[in-house]
């Protein structure tokens, strides 16, 4: 009897101990998870003293000053950087971080990089442990960037723009291609204050098989009239005019056509939920255009327009079953290993003008980098963001075809990418931005209402009037939440 008691007590102690151990274990984690290559990077810093720059130096300092400050003792600090691993891969980030550490002695960068970055960093963020710099675009399903924006938890980057790029003598603002800083995709509240630093950009437009056009002797349409005519011709040969990966891609498509239909001011009014704007004549043109395009859409598109099967829709282009597909410049990379029709050749064009005689247009999508307001090491975080625009960093990114909006970077492109990025040089208007950030409105999701409904339009479950009314209703509710 007694021995039974003793054993039970021992078991309980073991259980309690393991419980406590389980709870306490997390404290050690951050220290352990420091990337091993950081030490290597730190060692190299000593070998390159001429590039050294004390962490504390003010933005105005330029390289000439560095020599005098070199003697100052280097303060050890850690910068936590979290970056989304997109189609460009993870290696470029490790390389950039190593280069940053090399040029900033004493700074150790803890790099978190993941395809599902939100899942990795948000638990710690909820507990108050924020990364110092985050590279994560808007428009993702977990919407971490949007959530922090809506909660006003981001640091304004205005002073970063006036900083000198580390190791160079120009300011960040001067290096960024004009136009990229006046959009709702960098100034989410529409008040002229920049909160997101524009990173890798990609023109969005219509992809097609240029080989098919050559083979059939067709002309690439430049107006919607020619587009519909081509659609009818192709239909006789059993080829559909249009397909789309998922309705999520209609954001870029709609933005571009809205801007084409009513100009940039009209586009901005749409993005800031102006009263009645979605029921205006110009908006109606866009709704009807998409609905007409729906009738030319390949029959199985809707069934495959989900996260599991969207590549089947993209495959339609490669198989010559559909002609056009809206997408971004990452598409050829995404479909690199897919089988394709003989003589296939990527073609890329802007979306034809909505009004007769107008210019074609292409939405320019870009990823964003931001600093949480709760970041601990804000000065170094700003330094890191500024460093992103240095020639050194841009070169590393460009190697992986991640192109930043820095003047002159796209000149270094080759092959297909040269064609894609030259779209604006060929007369297409660049459209940038996105819906303005508002306080969250429960149950109202603008992109879902605007883009998700396209599936119902194509399948005939909803009419254009219903769609338009729903978008206007969502716009009304969001306007009320805008401050």
């Amino acid at each position: 009897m007694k021995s039974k008691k003793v054993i039970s007590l021992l078991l309980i102690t073991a259980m309690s101990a393991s419980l406590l151990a389980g709870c306490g274990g997390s404290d050690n984690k951050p220290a352990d998870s420091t990337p091993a290559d950081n030490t290597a990077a730190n060692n190299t810093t000593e070998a390159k003293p001429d590039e050294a720059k004390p962490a504390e130096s003010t933005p105005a300092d330029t390289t000439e000053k560095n020599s005098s400050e070199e003697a100052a003792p280097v303060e050890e600090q850690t910068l936590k950087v979290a970056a989304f691993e997109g189609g460009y891969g993870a290696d470029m980030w490790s390389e950039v971080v190593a280069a940053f550490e090399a040029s900033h002695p004493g700074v150790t960068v803890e790099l978190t990089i993941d395809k599902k970055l939100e899942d990795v960093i948000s638990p710690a963020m909820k507990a108050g442990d924020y990364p110092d710099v985050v590279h994560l675009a808007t428009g993702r399903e977990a919407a971490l960037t949007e959530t922090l924006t809506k909660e006003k938890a981001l640091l304004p980057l205005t002073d970063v723009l006036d900083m000198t790029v580390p190791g160079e003598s120009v300011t960040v603002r001067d290096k960024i291609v004009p136009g990229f800083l006046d959009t709702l995709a960098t100034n989410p509240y529409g008040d002229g204050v920049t909160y997101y630093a524009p990173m890798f950009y990609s023109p969005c437009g219509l992809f097609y098989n240029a080989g098919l056009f050559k083979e059939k002797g067709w002309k690439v349409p430049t107006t919607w009239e020619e587009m519909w005519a081509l659609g009818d011709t192709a239909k006789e040969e059993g080829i559909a005019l249009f397909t789309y990966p998922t309705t999520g891609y209609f954001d870029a498509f709609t933005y571009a056509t809205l801007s084409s239909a009513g100009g940039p001011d009209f586009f901005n009014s749409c993005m800031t939920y102006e009263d009645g704007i979605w029921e205006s004549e110009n908006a109606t043109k866009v709704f009807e255009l998409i609905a007409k395009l729906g009738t030319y859409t390949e029959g199985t598109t809707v069934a495959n327009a989900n996260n599991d099967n969207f590549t089947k829709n993209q495959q339609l282009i490669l198989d010559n079953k559909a002609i056009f597909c809206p997408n971004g410049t990452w598409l050829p990379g995404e479909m690199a290993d897919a089988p394709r029709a003989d003589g296939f050749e990527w073609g890329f064009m802007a979306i034809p003008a909505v009004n007769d005689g107008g210019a074609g247009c292409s939405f320019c999508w870009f990823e964003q980098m931001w600093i949480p307001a709760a970041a601990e090491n804000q000065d170094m975080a700003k330094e890191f963001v500024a460093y992103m625009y240095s020639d050194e960093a841009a070169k590393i990114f460009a190697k992986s075809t991640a192109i930043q909006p820095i003047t002159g970077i796209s000149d270094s492109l080759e092959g297909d990418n040269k064609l894609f990025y030259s779209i604006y040089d060929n007369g297409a208007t660049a459209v940038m931005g996105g819906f303005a950030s508002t306080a969250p409105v429960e149950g109202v999701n603008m992109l879902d209402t605007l883009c998700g409904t396209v599936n119902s339009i194509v399948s005939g479950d909803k009419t254009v009037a219903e769609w338009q009314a729903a978008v206007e209703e969502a716009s009304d509710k969001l306007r009320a939440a805008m401050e």
Partner: protein
Amino acid sequence: MKKVRGKSIFITLCVAPAVILFVIFMLIPTFNVFKMSLYKWGGYSNTKQFVGLNNFKILMEDTNFFRSFQNTVLLIAIVTIVTMGFSLIFAAILSREKIKGQNFFRIIFYIPNILSVVVISAIFSAIYDPNNGLLNSIIGIFRGSEKTPILWLGDQKLVIYSLVIAMIWQAIGYYMVMYMASMASVPESLYESANLEGAGRIRQFFSITLPLIWTNIRTTLTFFVISSINISFLIVKALTNGGPDGATEVFLSYMYKQAYTNSSYGYGMAIGVVVFLFSFGLSAIINFVTKREPLEF
């Protein structure tokens, strides 16, 4: 006296770890869900705004929520009825009849349960593929392959039933094994005497097997409610992500979209509260309705 006290300390110590774990991992989070549903909060910042029952008021007018409610109820009802029917029949056949390869079938039926939901949804995407899918190819033999393909995941009236099939396929094995376990404990003598009395197989099933495994069936009904809500989220997330245009939105996928994609964490928690109360209430009703005097054997 001293012995009694020592004993109660001993019991307290024994129970404490479980109670602590239960409080930390069950009670506090549940309480927090209820609490958060009264706030307007994005999930991260410290700016929580108390809004009382406002989230629930918005919920009552949210047509998208009602759509997800309908879909969930439809899934629970159809999946429960069909799965229970099939798994009872299969369990009865496999445990009462002498057929070749009994164990083989048992394993085959159970396999879907071991597969992860992502694998299951990949399998079903392949089956439902409009052009080269298994289902359309077989149907094409009868209706001719020239006709426009059936869009199993694209037709808004069909797509929810496509999910139903996947969920049933996934669940049958698990419940079958549970029913088989309790059927094994029904004494053989009852069947023998029933045979002597001249009762047929079907009569035996309804008069002996079913009443004697009734407590087990009641338990599984609660499981059906809970697992339908959970599994439907996983399958929807992997297979359709609520599409096309919200036609397959279920409770939890809508909750996820509101709490994260729409930055309305408090509203998401309000949906969570409704789901909690609904599943609790439904289980209670089912439990009450199916109450019978337990049969002793």
